């Protein structure tokens, strides 16, 4: 699995950080998404899918082979 984020679509809800803090973080200034792990390990993948599904800005894309 590969993850990409679009900061231009992010509305800083922070739900991805709550769902998978190992993969997502927020900028200190305006809360915009920061991607820590673009290739999350297997045990985090289900949480990453949830984060993408609930993102209000649809800023998270999950690429699965």
């Amino acid at each position, binding site marked *: 699995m590969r993850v990409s984020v679009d900061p231009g679509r992010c509305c800083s809800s*922070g739900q991805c950080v709550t769902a998978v803090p190992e993969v997502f973080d927020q900028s200190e200034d305006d809360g915009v998404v920061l991607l820590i792990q673009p290739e999350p390990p297997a045990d985090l993948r289900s949480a990453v899918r949830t984060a993408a599904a609930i993102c209000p800005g649809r800023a998270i894309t999950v690429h699965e082979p």
Partner: protein
Amino acid sequence: MTAVDPIDALTYPAARGGCPFAPPPAYQEALEQRPVTRISLWDGSRAWLVTRHEDVRAVMGDRRFSADARKPGFPFLSDGRRELAAQNPSFIRMDDPEHARFRRMLTGDFIIKRVEALRPAIQRIVDGFLDEMTSHHPPADLVAEFALPVPSLVICMLLGVPYQDHAYFQERSRILLRNHSTAAQVRRARDELSDYLQELAKRKELEPDEHIISKLIARGDLTREEVAGMSLLLLVAGHETTANMTALSTLALLRDPAQLARLREDPTLIKGAVEELLRFLSIVQGGTLRVAVESAEIGGTTIEAGEGVICMLSTANRDSSVFATPEALDVGRDARRHVAFGFGVHQCLGQPLARLELQIALETLIRRLPDLRLAVPFEDVRFRTDTAVHGLEELPVTW
């Protein structure tokens, strides 16, 4: 004239049915039979009612639907709400990029880490009001003594508003959110709140502190009116919603002892339970409003430019294609796909704060008052039916 078309029979607001937590049966029926349908508003105008989870997310995530109440065709739920939305709108009634410019001035204050750092302060506030409430003999009104003062004090602390003025702004917030408030009443309440906040901003220009109002002033690119407008939005949104969620959540759990027992036995369920309560109660009972600025197809129906749309969050949160047995409160389910905070770029700015306040308030209440129960029959609890935000007039409890 022909017989009344059943499509025309749907009106806003529809009456709630037997379960005071559930959306009006007419909207629930629309969800099942006509997920995108026509609805008549108070002034005889029409709008589209969108009820399914997928369609609500589609509208709210699509820039062809505007949140700008100055655009022709924007639906208003009452005369007072038209007054509130159309004059000096806050950024919740703007579209990007104008909306994003203002919103991003505040998002830094609501990032997860910064909100989480407020936990000890919020816990102290929650404990303080519970100490006060339990220092006298039961019964007590949980709304007046706990559910309202907690978020009110928290938002005052964040903004830098003196809490001793709470009666002044709580009373006026209530007028702003009440459906039957006239345009004149809304104008007056809004102007008084705005004057109050401009006075406060003026004082903070001379004596700045580390709170949000001072930080907005320190930017240097906002007028005093704009600072007051943004503060007004945060002040009103910051306490009415969380207060009503706290009171209704408590009542919903008292009404469902099995769910309350699960939560009491396993306090680690609290985070998920709050998401479920947000879904189950969906307190923004008027839904969220948009107007199409281009024609767009939603759920197989074409909505033309200039037509208003009401996204019914409460039915979207009871859409059985997303939530199994949606009418049941289940504190163990994963309810995170709910749209109680809306969806899209306008989704609630304060949601991390609301979540944290609810988690702490409910967990503490359940832990500290193991014998908490209603002091009146459930049927006698008075719900607020005439407001944009569903809630309780009072919640008499004993312990």
